[in-house]
């Protein structure tokens, strides 16, 4: 008769009562001694062994057995000499571990220095740079950094710059990274060492895939801006749009200028969707929504922990210059700024957020980026920062939104500002995680971090974004097709 708990089949599965036993848990670990009661007077717990199979530490064992007991067969013994054990002393293991870490630190000093420099300005970063900087010098002098560089080159990745750039990204918005498995739960926040510069390969819509932008010698700090090729589809070849279905759309498609032309299925509008990690929840929805228009191809390229504050970490203007030229982009949809309320260097001087110099520099960067894009005949939909749960952070984002709007005002014909706050807030204009959709269903639109959007939130924003594109370009609506 089985009892409720039959421990004799500890390894059996649900709905299964007969299987072999689990291996002794202390297999391979030998015991020096128990703690005698005088050493550990409070160690009074006793394990009752319902069957003596659960644990080999049977209290009925002789003292001798107990003091020197190799518990069961070792996992790896010399096939020729089964009495030899593959064990090592704690001292040896600590030497091996510390030695391996030091050697690994030397081998990877370049990469580590870059990652350290990519953390927020402050004492933590100073300490990290103080450690990795000299180590990098040693590694370079002793050629220890050479193997990693060769390896990176062999793998088709850009070697980290040998002359370290002194900066970093931030991290309010380094949340869900590229994993899209988060639902109503929280992904662990990424620490400074885990900040990837590439969140995912560019997603593609329609008939072509993005190939990696190549480092352009002329572009300032292009090295930092080049994505790691590991994230690139190695088979992707920029094919032409000829596989698109030919429709008998009578509209004139010969215009090459974005303005005024009516995109069609055979000559679709070329859209590039970029941003930081907040684009993670939104980008896919925008691509889907654009796909439904039947007259647009879109690429998504978001990089977590990026923005305009730290071009030393990721240089969006250079990256965009290369990418838009390659894709012959007509419209850029962008959402940047969530990571930007942090100090950055101006003329090598750390400049705190909130100072006049910070604001004037940031303003200049926003203006320059817009100038660069509009000079290249592109049109821009700039998605403003949404309401944030944290009050202080929300205030900062409101300030940035104001800067965006003021700078955008200089480009009335080619840039639109999309304010996501009205749709993303509750009836009082405050932050909300949940919204009620048209069908009366309550949907979680923001992730639990109070910053990022869920895919449902993306579905709310996407139609507005596509409408904003229609303000610039006569993109046909699905029902017009």
């Amino acid at each position, binding site marked *: 008769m089985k009892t409720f708990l039959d421990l004799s089949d500890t390894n059996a599965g649900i709905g299964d009562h007969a299987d072999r036993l689990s291996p002794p848990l202390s297999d391979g670990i030998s015991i020096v001694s128990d703690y005698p009661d005088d050493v550990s007077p409070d160690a009074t717990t006793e394990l009752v062994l319902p069957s003596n199979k659960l644990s080999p530490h049977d209290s009925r064992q002789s003292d001798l057995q107990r003091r020197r007991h190799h518990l069961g067969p070792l996992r790896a013994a010399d096939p020729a000499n089964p009495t030899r054990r593959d064990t090592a002393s704690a001292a040896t293991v600590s030497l091996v571990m510390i030695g391996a870490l030091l050697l690994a630190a030397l081998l990877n000093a370049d990469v580590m220095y870059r990652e350290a420099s990519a953390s927020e300005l402050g004492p933590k970063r100073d300490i990290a740079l103080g450690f990795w900087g000299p180590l990098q010098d040693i590694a370079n002098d002793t050629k220890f950094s050479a193997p990693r560089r060769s390896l990176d080159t062999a793998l088709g990745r850009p070697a980290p710059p040998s002359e370290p750039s002194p900066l970093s990204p931030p991290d309010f918005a380094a949340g869900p990274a590229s994993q899209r498995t988060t639902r109503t739960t929280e992904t662990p926040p990424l620490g400074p060492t885990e900040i990837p510069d590439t969140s995912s390969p560019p997603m593609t819509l329609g008939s072509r895939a993005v190939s990696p932008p190549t480092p352009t010698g002329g572009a300032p700090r292009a090295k930092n801006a080049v994505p790691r090729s590991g994230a690139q589809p190695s088979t992707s070849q920029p094919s032409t749009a000829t596989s698109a279905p030919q429709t008998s759309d009578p509209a004139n498609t010969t215009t090459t200028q974005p303005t005024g032309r009516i995109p069609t299925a055979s000559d679709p509008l070329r859209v590039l969707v970029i941003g930081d990690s907040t684009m993670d929840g939104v980008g896919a929805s925008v691509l889907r929504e654009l796909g439904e228009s039947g007259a647009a191809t879109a690429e998504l390229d978001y990089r977590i922990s990026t923005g305009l504050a730290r071009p030393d970490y990721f240089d969006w203007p250079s990256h965009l210059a290369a990418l838009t030229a390659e894709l012959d982009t007509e419209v850029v949809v962008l959402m940047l700024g969530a990571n930007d309320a942090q100090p950055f260097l101006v003329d090598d001087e750390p400049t705190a957020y909130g100072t006049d110099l910070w604001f004037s520099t940031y303003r200049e960067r926003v203006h320059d980026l817009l100038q660069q894009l509009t000079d290249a005949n592109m049109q821009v939909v700039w998605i403003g920062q949404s309401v944030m749960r944290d009050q202080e952070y929300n205030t900062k984002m409101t300030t940035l939104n104001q800067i965006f709007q003021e700078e955008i005002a200089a480009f009335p014909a080619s840039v639109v500002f999309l304010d996501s706050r009205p749709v993303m807030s509750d009836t009082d204009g405050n932050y909300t995680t949940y919204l009620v959709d048209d069908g009366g269903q309550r949907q979680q639109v923001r992730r639990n971090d109070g910053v990022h959007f*869920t895919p449902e939130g993306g579905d709310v924003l996407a139609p507005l974004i596509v409408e904003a594109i229609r303000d610039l370009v006569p993109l046909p609506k699905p029902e017009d097709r």
Partner: protein
Amino acid sequence: MLFPTVAFATFFCVAFLANWLLRPHHRLWRLVMTLLSLFFYGWWDYRFVALLALAIVLNHLSAQAVHRWTPGRGPSIAGQAALVAGITANLAILAVFKYYGFFVTSATNMVNRTGLNLAPPLLEVTLPIGISFYTFQAISYIIDVHRGTLRRPMVFLDFAFYLSFFPQLVAGPIVRATEMVDQIRRRPDPRSIPASEALWLITLGLFKKVVISSYLAKQLVDPVLGLPSQHSGLEVTAAVYAYSIQIYADFSGYTDMAIGCALLLGFRFPQNFNAPYRAQSVSDFWRRWHMSLSRWLRDYLYLPLGGNRGGKWLTYRNLLLTMLLGGLWHGAAFTFIVWGLAHGLMMSLERAMGEWWKSLGVMPWAIATFRWLITFNFVTMAWVLFRAESLAHALEIYQVMFSFAAAPASVPFVQQLTVVAVVLTLAAVGSHFVPPTATRWWRWEISRLNPAMLAVLLAVTLTAADALGPQGVAPFIYFQF
């Protein structure tokens, strides 16, 4: 801190030295190791530490009460009440942090469909990492005290050490108190650590996570399953199989690292994976996948429900209920519920059909292959629910896979699929059929290296893993549970 980071490597070196140097001083050792574990947990968010401390105190008191009011081995009302109160408190904490939003949203949506318009307050809390894991451990502990499996509750420091022990804290294995109590009390020989086995597990886990899982995620799974409608059926199918490997590599990689780290500290954890994709039935799969969870569900849910002793229909009910709750344990979403139910249904079906193939008189290898094919494909198809953001998203993936919905003609056949991804997926499935003894020779060879060579080998391995993996570490899938 995540395992594959410099921060953790440094932390682990400190913990390793502290562990072996302090081990002779039992009380101090437990205290310092517990504090180190709390530090490890607080690295994500210092507020989590308070919650873990609360869990430790709460469950310690519960166990004491249960023990005091359960005289002898006989049942007592007071003991029962203390047990129920303890379990309820644990589940309440879990419910607040993990399920509140989901249940309240689902319930109001259901009610509002009838025309009412309820808007109950919604908490917006961050899900503390690993809460599902340590809550389950705590529940099993107080039940074990009640059942008498543990004759006495653990002393406070032992219990605090056990519940917070950092290798298993955030993503299992779900180690039971009965498995730890002896290992805490008995001092292993510091001259004899199963180092080569441990280092082998750690490097293996590192490769599974950093190289295999991350590569498949970034190259194929995330881009394709994020936007299934924009990819061909072939690619979506490949991505679904790749996801099957991704989740295995991700979770078993974490477990390997956890078991390896624990071994270096003188603890042996129960095995958590045993070549799960070799399984010949879904029940068999659950004896091989996340074994510590299946064991938990069997002993503390399935068997108390009556197991298979109540006749055919009760057994089916118990299987369904266990798997449904097991599904919900993974996350607060309908996708997880359906996923659990699917597994429960399949297990009931297997039970109902019995060993039907025996009467066929077909060759055993053909039967085995057939059963393996059914099981592997079922499990893989079910993972779609695990990955999908919503049931609608899962349906979309299935539709494209089975081409119920014709892909737009403009979608090229291959955009993300690479030869490497296909080979990696096939090789990972194939690796399930390699007997575990095959690594024995290799491990033995490692153990014979002198410490300097071992350190070099380890450093090179770390460098290779870092270079091959994408920059930054994607969050572990299982962290969100």
